[in-house]
């Protein structure tokens, strides 16, 4: 039994949340002292730049109203005109509307628009843009593009082609790093003749080591060895596999990094040989190699390690004559040994957290560098002010591994809170297109301490309103409130370890569940009471039931909770008989009067129609391949066709063994959600 008092005017609260001010984008600025870069108005850069990207990053480069923490930003404050490029489906996208000029560069598929160099070059010529900011993704690390720009005398706001090329190749970049005295993962790649030779190599590297066939991709056939005995075993196994499976004797023996953290160093360099490291970003919270939550600084690094990592990153940047902003990624093991992973020669998605703690506007710096100015900061000028956390809010794949897409019927960023920055390229009414990245926004919170930033993040996630598309806010909220995350005990294995079967939604604790049930009951009663109150003159008088005590039944998942509600004044008291212990995590609540709940037990259960013999498109997309034809017999689990949506190829399989009756799609065809693709007998 539990009693909960609920705040008065609960319904008002609810509707206020649902329909609060929609002008919050333009809410007051919370300019903080730490954003201290002062732009020098006398410093002339470009008159017009073209932003060869879309979505949030295109908006970010522009100025923008999503960046409330920066009073004036980037190209806008620098007095630069901007040109946006967009595909035809993006013609009314925020980034296209925000720019001074917008040029359509082709149809929706990225290969025909945002990756279409010819069209983008045409746009540059037509608009007379003097420089191009590539954002991230698309053409940002394409040396061909950089070359073509250089050939036409257009500045590329990023590093030189040489650096792009050098760092773009995984093997070459490691060699360069090694030469520049950057820690790389010690290892051996080649033919190992004997067991003892393998043991010797392993001892040189230092345990633990990983042994696998060089030709095997990814983690396939990987063996981890902690001692000589295991190395011998691993050698036999792997060399056997190398010979039999790949016909290639070479073995890879490499230092195995257990519980690695992904920590990266932001560097900034100019064309005059100056390079700075702008501290680290901790990006260990990843799901299938996709970063989910990032923070700066890292809880794990001490000043000494940070300095070492920073200096090595700068060494690497200098080794390739790097200019502009770049990121050097490291793996860090539990003993704070760090190893070079790769260098990204572009602005990173998670750059805002670095901006928050250093006060530097990276886009502005990139533009300055591209124009040939020297950095006016020195290494000792780069502070760590406070703590910043970024959550990537995106449309997660539906439980069956497919993207949901749709129209944002309601969308409200939590910008009513201070110290919150939201980088997004969408607004209420926007479509999340199947053609592009499913990211909705980057939510950044800032605080003097980590605890403050985390508390703010919790608040911000709770205040975020997204309707019409699915989103990962429940997961984000779960991560940032997880004891392990709060204590800083994280690694790239965090998500698989904490959610071995995948995230199943918030697990309610008993008192939270009571709170939820009580709120549902109180809201239900509030709605009932409102229905009884008809305003205006009445010809036939109304006779509502005078009542301040109700018996209800609230269904939550499979659980049914009988409860009693009494109301005195504005306070509801809900008494819950808790008999149910198991619960589902989706909060599908249904409140019924006690009578309705009783009668409901007579209602028949509906049997869903048998869909196993019908394959429908689970989402809008393009058919890439159809693997069956009428008359074929398919086994359960056999691939029937492949549909591409949101840059993901999804294989649709047969649910049961059957003969194919008819095929209703062909490769290249665009299909809508629910369209019939294949019928089985």
């Amino acid at each position, binding site marked *: 039994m539990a009693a909960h008092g609920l705040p008065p005017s609960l319904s008002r609260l609810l509707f206020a949340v649902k329909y609060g001010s929609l002008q919050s984008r333009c809410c007051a600025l919370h300019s903080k002292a730490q954003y201290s870069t002062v732009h020098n108005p006398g410093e002339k850069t470009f008159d017009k730049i073209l932003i060869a990207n879309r979505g949030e990053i295109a908006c970010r480069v522009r100025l923008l109203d999503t960046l409330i923490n920066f009073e004036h930003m980037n190209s806008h404050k620098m007095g630069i005109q901007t040109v946006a490029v967009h595909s035809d489906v993006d013609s009314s996208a925020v980034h296209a509307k925000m720019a001074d000029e917008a040029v359509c560069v082709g149809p929706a598929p990225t290969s025909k628009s945002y990756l279409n160099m010819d069209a983008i070059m045409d746009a540059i010529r037509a608009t007379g843009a003097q420089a191009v900011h590539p954002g991230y993704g698309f053409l940002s690390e394409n040396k061909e593009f950089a070359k073509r720009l250089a050939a036409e005398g257009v500045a590329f706001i990023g590093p030189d082609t040489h650096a792009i090329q050098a760092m773009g190749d995984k093997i070459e970049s490691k060699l360069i790093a090694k030469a520049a005295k950057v820690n790389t993962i010690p290892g051996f790649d080649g033919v190992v003749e004997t067991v003892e030779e393998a043991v010797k190599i392993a001892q040189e590297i230092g345990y633990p080591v990983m042994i696998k066939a060089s030709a095997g991709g990814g983690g396939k056939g990987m063996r981890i060895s902690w001692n000589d005995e295991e190395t011998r075993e691993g050698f036999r196994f792997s060399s056997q596999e190398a010979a039999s499976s790949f016909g290639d004797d070479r073995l890879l023996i490499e230092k195995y990094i257990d519980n690695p953290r992904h920590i990266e160093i932001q560097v900034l360099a100019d064309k005059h040989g100056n390079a700075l490291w702008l501290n680290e970003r901790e990006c260990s919270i990843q799901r299938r190699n996709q970063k989910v939550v990032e923070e700066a600084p890292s809880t794990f690094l001490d000043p000494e390690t940070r300095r070492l990592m920073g200096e090595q990153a700068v060494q690497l940047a200098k080794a390739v004559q790097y200019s502009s902003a770049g990121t050097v990624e490291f793996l860090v093991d539990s003993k704070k040994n760090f190893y070079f992973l790769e260098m990204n020669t572009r602005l990173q998605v998670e750059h805002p957290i670095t901006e928050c703690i250093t006060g530097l506007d990276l886009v502005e710096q990139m533009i300055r560098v591209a124009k040939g100015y020297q950095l006016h900061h020195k290494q000792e000028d780069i502070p760590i002010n406070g703590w910043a956390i970024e959550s990537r809010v995106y449309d997660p794949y539906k439980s069956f591994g497919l993207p949901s897409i749709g129209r944002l019927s309601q969308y409200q960023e939590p910008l009513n809170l201070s110290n919150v920055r939201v980088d997004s390229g969408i607004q209420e009414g926007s479509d999340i297109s199947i053609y592009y990245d499913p990211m909705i926004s980057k939510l950044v919170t800032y605080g003097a301490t980590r605890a403050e930033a985390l508390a703010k993040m919790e608040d911000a996630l709770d205040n975020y309103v997204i309707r019409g598309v699915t989103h990962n806010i429940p997961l984000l909220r779960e991560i940032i409130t997880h004891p392990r995350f709060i204590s800083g005990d994280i690694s790239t294995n965090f998500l698989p370890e904490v959610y071995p079967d995948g995230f199943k939604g918030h697990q309610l604790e008993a008192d939270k569940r009571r709170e939820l049930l009580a709120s549902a009951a109180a809201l239900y009663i509030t709605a009932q009471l409102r229905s009884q109150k008809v305003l205006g003159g009445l010809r*036939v008088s109304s006779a509502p039931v005078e009542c301040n005590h109700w018996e209800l039944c609230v269904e939550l998942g499979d659980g049914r909770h009988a409860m009693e509600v009494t109301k005195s004044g504005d306070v509801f008291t809900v008494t819950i008989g808790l008999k149910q212990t198991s619960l589902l995590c989706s909060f599908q609540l249904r409140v019924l009067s006690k009578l309705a709940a009783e009668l409901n037990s*007579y209602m028949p259960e509906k049997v869903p129609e048998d869909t196993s013999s019908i394959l429908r498109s689970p989402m809008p997309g393009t058919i890439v391949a159809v693997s069956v034809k009428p008359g074929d017999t398919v086994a359960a689990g056999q691939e029937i066709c492949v549909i591409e949506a949101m840059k993901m190829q999804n294989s649709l399989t047969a649910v049961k063994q059957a003969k194919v009756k008819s095929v209703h799609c062909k490769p290249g065809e665009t299909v809508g959600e629910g369209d019939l693709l294949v019928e089985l007998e």
Partner: protein
Amino acid sequence: MAAAFSVARSSCGLINGLRTSLRGLAPLKHGAVAASVPGTGLHRGCRRYSVGHLSVKERVDEKRRAALVGGGQSRIDAQHKRGKLTARERVQLLLDPESFVETDMFVEHRCSDFAMEQDRNKFPGDSVVTGRGRINGRLVYVFSQDFTVFGGSLSGAHAQKICKIMDQAMTVGAPVIGLNDSGGARIQEGVESLAGYADIFLRNVLASGVVPQISLIMGPCAGGAVYSPALTDFTFMVKDTSYLFITGPDVVKSVTNEDVTQEELGGAKTHTSVSGVAHHAFENDVEALLNLREFFNFLPLSNQDPAPIRECHDPSDRLVPSLDTIVPFESTKAYDMLDIIQSIVDERDFFEIMPNYAKNIVVGFARMNGRTVGIVGNQPKVASGCLDINSSVKGARFVRFCDAFNIPIITFVDVPGFLPGTAQEYGGIIRHGAKLLFAFAEATVPKITIITRKAYGGAYDVMSSKHLRGDVNYAWPSAEVAVMGAKGAVQIIFRGKENQAEAEAEYVEKFANPFPAAVRGFVDDIIEPSTTRKKICRDLEVLASKKQVNPWKKHANIPL
């Protein structure tokens, strides 16, 4: 005991079901049998005091108890087993607790043929429960047919009970809700049963436009019986357990040799998506009744009452920025009119009528600043939002309901015209399209129209245009009011001209925008889409006192 009665046109299974349940009658303790068979110990006692107060009271109590269990426990169980609630459970769930005031609990049928006069064949209240009650405090009259008594078949007495509450509902001015679950006419009563139907039909017709009438079909409803729901304003059905047809599958088979199941012939899916007979279908009895309560909140009690106003928590001046981008630049591209409607109305609460029928027009109830409004909108997502026979009829009937019951009408226009083709012409699109025109033209309630995009040709006139006495007509900047689309127009105006593309561009420049209509005053204003809600709410406030009277007439002659 062997079927002394039969149930019209129902399936064999149904009759069997009844027989089975009749057999289960005997062990009933407080049922009709025990109550009316003289010679038992109990009744010997009663008779001794037959003139005394106690005896009558006892008999009253017994009759009441009998009435409360209808056809008896075993038949109640059978009803539950079918996934259906009993007549009384339905009433109880539909109405506010303790608000039901029953009438004619003691009425019994008067048939004396086929052994019907025997006491065991008499049930207090007969096969229908009638009375009045409250839904959220508001008065309503209700009848609920009791399938456990003679399969809910309609006797003279049954009809008389229904007529009584309908008469009273008319004199008081309150809606009538019928919960239908009846095998059909009581065949034993012959023509008396038919007369009963006619009496109900007449009242349905007389009450039409005076008080709202709603039918909820919760079981079979076949033969002549279907015409009562057909005459009421709204017909709702319960999925899988309700059927509406003139003749059942057996008769269909013998006459037309068609093989068809009950569900295919007259189930909820058929009537909500194919025939347009029903306005909505719900998952089960409980869902249906709870939804009916919600629906009832939208309606005024009678044509003497204004549309009800509920307390509103959604600011009336709320801007809807997403509307500024909802209409695609390409006029050939579709969007969902429901997105517009839901974002404009209070709390996204839109009760759509006939959501699965003639989907190229959307109709339904919502509230604006708490006040009930009727919404009509072309749906560009389906058949480009054109008007065809079905959508015209669907729209017309809805508009007339709103007009009859003082509910303001808000119309969202994006219509490329009437659907061409032989199917439409042969089907009488002229006659049917005229219904929608007629309905909008004769309506005297506040009428607000928003042209979101296309308003082409005759369909422009029809969709609550200024010329049909629209009170406030708005156009969004994306509006195109013209006789037809650019391509077709150019082919006529510039027939034979070389440069069609140039001519088309000229036409678009001239006509594919809201100005031609605005300069003539055919739209009152060109508004930012995001301000639509705010503007409508403000206009409705002013129009609340609108008074407009059509010329006196016996009744108009709508092109039926």
